[in-house]
C-alpha cells in the first residue's frame, strides 16, 4: 500500500505489527556476510521448507492465522559463532548451526518449545539459553544495531512494525527544518566515520548557503582493513540509515541523495537497492513523501576499489565520474561539495543515529556516552580475541571491558599486547591504556583515533614492526599520488620498514622514520596522508624496544619476520644424509656424510628448502 498521509503510516505500521505478532514463533537465520559464508542460506531454505511441509504449522498465510515466520535477518554480530539461528519469543540463540541440525531445531524448539541444549553457547561450564544473557551481548548497549538480527532486512513492513519512519513523520509534520537541525546540534552527535566533527554544525552550514540545489551524501566506503560496522548496518537495517538521510535532506532542503558503497560489499548494495525500491513504492521516498509535499530521491554509487574515496572530496569527485582524488580545502564540502553544490556528507552509522535522536530528543541522547561524546559507538572486534564480531557500546567504555568482558579475552589465553584502533589511520593502545575510556577526545590525547571503529587485538605473538610495515604498505598502495609528502614520503617510510624486517635496518633509519612521519603528518593534503604515519609513530613510541631488537640484534622474538629467523640443525637428530646440503641453493650447509651437518647462518638466505626436505625433522628455526 502507498502511504500518503500520517494516518496511512500508522495503519501500515499497525498492520505490519499485527502480522509480526501473529507469528507465534519466529526463526531468524542470520544472513550477514559472515554467516552466509558459513552456509546460512541452506539452513534458511531447509527450515523454511520444513515449516511449509509441517502439518502442524502454518507459514505466512497472512495476519489472520497464527503462523511461524522463517526470516533472514541482518548480522547478529557474534560472527565467531556463526551461522547463528535465533528463535523468538523464547530468544534462544543457536550457534555454529549446520544443515543437519535443522530437524532437531524444528522438532524441539518450534513444535515442542524446548531448547536444543547442544547448540547453545557455553562458557566456563555455563550454558546460555537466551541470546541477551550471553556475556557478549549482555555487556553491550545496542541502539544503532538494535534491529540488526531481529528483523527481516529485506522487508520494509518489519521496519515499520518496530517504529520505523516515525522519526521522519515527526520531522516532516511537526518540525521546521531548522528545528531538526537544532535537535541534532543539541544532541552533539559527532561524525562516526572517524573525524568526530559535529553533525548538526555541518547541516547548519549547508542550510544557510545561498545556493538552493543541495545534496545529501552517505559515505559507505568503509575501507579500513578490520572494520565492518557500516556494512552490517547497510545489510541488517538499511531503512534506518535511509530514514536518517531523508531527515537530513529535509533539514537542509536537499532534493537528492547519494550513497557511495564500496564494491567489496555486494550484499550491502543489494539490500540497499531493495530497501530503496520498497521505500519508493511505499511513498516514503520519492515524490511528495507521506503526502507532506517534501520530495527526495536516493541514488547508489558503487566504489571501484580506491581507499582514498573514503575521504570526502575524493568521494564526491568519484560520484561525479572523476578520479577519486582529494582537493585542497577551503572551499569545504558544506559550501562546494558534490557537483560544486552545498553538500551534507556523513557516514552510515551517523545517519543511523539520526532517527532515534529526532524521535526521542537531544536530552535522551545525552543519557548515553560521555559529556563530549554522547551516544554509542559500534566497533568491529577482530584479531586475536575469543569473540570476534560486531559490538556496540556507549562512548567512554574502557578498552578492558571491550576486550575482556565482551571479547572474552585474548585467543588461546596468550598475554595481551596491543589493540590497533582506527585501522591504517589509527594507532595502537597498549596494556597501560586498557583503562582508557574510548571516546573522541581521550583517544586524541593518546595520539590514536577512534577512526571508523576497527579494533584489532594483538597478542604476544604479533610483531609490531611487521604490523607497522603492513599498514604502511597499505597506505602506500592507496596513496592517490596527488601530494608529494604522501606519495614520496610513505614510499620512503615503507622502504625503511622493509629494510628493518629484512634485518638490514640501521639506528639512523629509526630517526629518519620518526622525522619523515612527523613531516608527512604536518604537510600532507588530506586525512589519509595526514594519518598515514600514525601506525608507525605510535609503534615507535610504544614498542621502541622491538624496533631496536630488529635493528641491533637482528632478532624478531615473535618469529614473524622470516628473514630474521635462524635455521639450525639438531645434531642429535641429523643422520648426516647430506640431502639438505644438496638442496641448499646457496651452499650454506656443509658437513661430513653420516655426521651431523651445520648451517652457516651468514650465508643462509632462509628459504626453508632444507627444512622442507629433511626426512628426520632435524632442522628447526630459532627466533
Amino acid at each position, binding site marked *: 500500500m502507498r502511504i500518503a498521509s500520517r494516518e496511512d503510516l500508522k495503519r501500515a505500521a499497525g498492520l505490519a505489527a499485527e502480522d509480526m505478532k501473529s507469528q507465534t514463533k519466529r526463526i531468524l537465520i542470520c544472513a550477514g556476510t559472515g554467516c552466509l*559464508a558459513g552456509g546460512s542460506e541452506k539452513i534458511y531454505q531447509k527450515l523454511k521448507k520444513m515449516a511449509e511441509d509441517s502439518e502442524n504449522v502454518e507459514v505466512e498465510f497472512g495476519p489472520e492465522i497464527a503462523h511461524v515466520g522463517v526470516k533472514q535477518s541482518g548480522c547478529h554480530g557474534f560472527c565467531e559463532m556463526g551461522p547463528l539461528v535465533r528463535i523468538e519469543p523464547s530468544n534462544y540463540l543457536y550457534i555454529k548451526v549446520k544443515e543437519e541440525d535443522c530437524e532437531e531445531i524444528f522438532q524441539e524448539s518450534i513444535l515442542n518449545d524446548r531448547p536444543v541444549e547442544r547448540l547453545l553457547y557455553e562458557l566456563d561450564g555455563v550454558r546460555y539459553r537466551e541470546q541477551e544473557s550471553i556475556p557478549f551481548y549482555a555487556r553491550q548497549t545496542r541502539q544503532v544495531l538494535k534491529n540488526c538480527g531481529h528483523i527481516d532486512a529485506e522487508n520494509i513492513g518489519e521496519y515499520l512494525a518496530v517504529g520505523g519512519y516515525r522519526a521522519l513523520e515527526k520531522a516532516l509534520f511537526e518540525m521546521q527544518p531548522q528545528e531538526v537541525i537544532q535537535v541534532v546540534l543539541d544532541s552533539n552527535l559527532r561524525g562516526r566515520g572517524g573525524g568526530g566533527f559535529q553533525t548538526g554544525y555541518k547541516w547548519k552550514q549547508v542550510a544557510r548557503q545561498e545556493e538552493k540545489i543541495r545534496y545529501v551524501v552517505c559515505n559507505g566506503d568503509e575501507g579500513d*582493513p578490520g572494520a565492518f560496522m557500516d*556494512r552490517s548496518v547497510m545489510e541488517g537495517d538499511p531503512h534506518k540509515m535511509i530514514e536518517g538521510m531523508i531527515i537530513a535532506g529535509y533539514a537542509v532542503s536537499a532534493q537528492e541523495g547519494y550513497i557511495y558503497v564500496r564494491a*567489496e560489499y555486494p550484499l550491502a548494495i543489494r539490500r540497499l537497492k531493495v530497501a530503496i525500491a520498497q521505500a519508493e513504492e511505499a511513498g516514503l521516498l520519492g515524490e511528495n513523501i507521506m503526502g507532506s509535499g517534501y520530495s527526495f530521491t536516493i541514488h547508489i554509487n558503487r*566504489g571501484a576499489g580506491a581507499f582514498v574515496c573514503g575521504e570526502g572530496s575524493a568521494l564526491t569527485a568519484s560520484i561525479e*565520474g572523476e578520479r577519486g*582524488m582529494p582537493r585542497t580545502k577551503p572551499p569545504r564540502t558544506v559550501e562546494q561539495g558534490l557537483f560544486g553544490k552545498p553538500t551534507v556528507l556523513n557516514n552510515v552509522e551517523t545517519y543511523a543515529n539520526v532517527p532515534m535522536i529526532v524521535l526521542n530528543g537531544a536530552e535522551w541522547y545525552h543519557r548515553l556516552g560521555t559529556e563530549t561524546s554522547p551516544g554509542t559507538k559500534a566497533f568491529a572486534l*577482530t584479531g586475536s580475541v575469543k569473540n570476534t564480531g560486531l559490538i556496540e557500546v556507549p562512548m567512554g567504555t574502557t578498552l578492558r571491558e571491550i576486550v575482556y568482558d565482551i571479547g572474552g579475552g585474548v585467543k588461546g589465553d596468550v598475554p595481551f599486547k596491543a589493540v590497533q584502533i582506527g585501522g591504517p589511520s589509527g594507532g595502537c593502545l597498549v596494556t597501560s591504556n586498557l583503562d582508557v575510556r574510548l571516546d573522541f577526545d581521550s583517544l586524541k590525547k593518546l595520539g590514536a583515533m577512534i577512526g571508523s571503529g576497527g579494533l584489532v587485538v594483538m597478542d604476544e605473538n604479533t610483531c609490531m614492526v611487521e604490523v607497522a610495515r603492513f599498514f604502511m604498505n597499505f597506505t602506500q*598502495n592507496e596513496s592517490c599520488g596527488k601530494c608529494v609528502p604522501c606519495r614520496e614520503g610513505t614510499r620512503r617510510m615503507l622502504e625503511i620498514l622493509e629494510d628493518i624486517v629484512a634485518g638490514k635496518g640501521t639506528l639512523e633509519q629509526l630517526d629518519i622514520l620518526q622525522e619523515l612521519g612527523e613531516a608527512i603528518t604536518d604537510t600532507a593534503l588530506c586525512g589519509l596522508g595526514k594519518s598515514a604515519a600514525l601506525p608507525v609513530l605510535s609503534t615507535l613510541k610504544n614498542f621502541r624496544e622491538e624496533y631496536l631488537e630488529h635493528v641491533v640484534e637482528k632478532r624478531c622474538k615473535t618469529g614473524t619476520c622470516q628473514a630474521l629467523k635462524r635455521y639450525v640443525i639438531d645434531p642429535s637428530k641429523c643422520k648426516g644424509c647430506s640431502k639438505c646440503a644438496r638442496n641448499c641453493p646457496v651452499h650454506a650447509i656443509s658437513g661430513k656424510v653420516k655426521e651431523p651437518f651445520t648451517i652457516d647462518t651468514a650465508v643462509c638466505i632462509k628459504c626453508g628448502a632444507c627444512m622442507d626436505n629433511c626426512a628426520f625433522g632435524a632442522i628447526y628455526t630459532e627466533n
Partner: protein
Amino acid sequence: MLEQSYYDKTDEIIARHGAAKKSLIPVIQDIQAEYRYLPPELLSYVAKKLNIGEAKAYSVATFYENFSFEAKGKYIIRVCDGTACHVRKSTAILNKLREELGLSSEKHTTDDMMFTLETVSCLGACGLAPAMTVNDTVHPAMTPEKVTELIQKLRNGEEV
C-alpha cells in the same frame, strides 16, 4: 576489433545510466561485470558517447583498482589481506594458492584462463579470518589444506 555485439551491449548499458559524464564509472563497471574485464576499445567508445576526452576516461579507468584492461579468468579469487586476516596468517593462504595455480606476484591469471588471483585489502569478513572469495562468494577460515581442496573442486567443475 571487437564484435558488434560488444558495442550493442555497451549502448544498452549507457542507455541504462544516461549519457552523462557522471555515468562513466557505473557504465564501465557494468561493462566489466559483463565481460570480466574492460576492453580498451569499449572505453574509447564510451568516452565518445559520453562526450568525455579519451585521455580523461583512461585516467579515470586506470585510477581505480577494480578496472582491468586484461581479460580475467573464469574464477576470480580474491585473498583478503586486511589487518584481521593478516594477523591470522593470510600470507600462507596466498602462497598456497600461487603454488597450486602456478601464479606469482607478477602473473595473475592462469594460461588456460580459468583462474585469476588477486589480493584485496579488506573484505569486511574479519570475523571469519582468514577469508577469500571466489567470484564474490566468501570462503571463511581458510587453511592451506582447504585451498588445495577448493582448487581441486573448481577444476573438476564442482559447485563451491
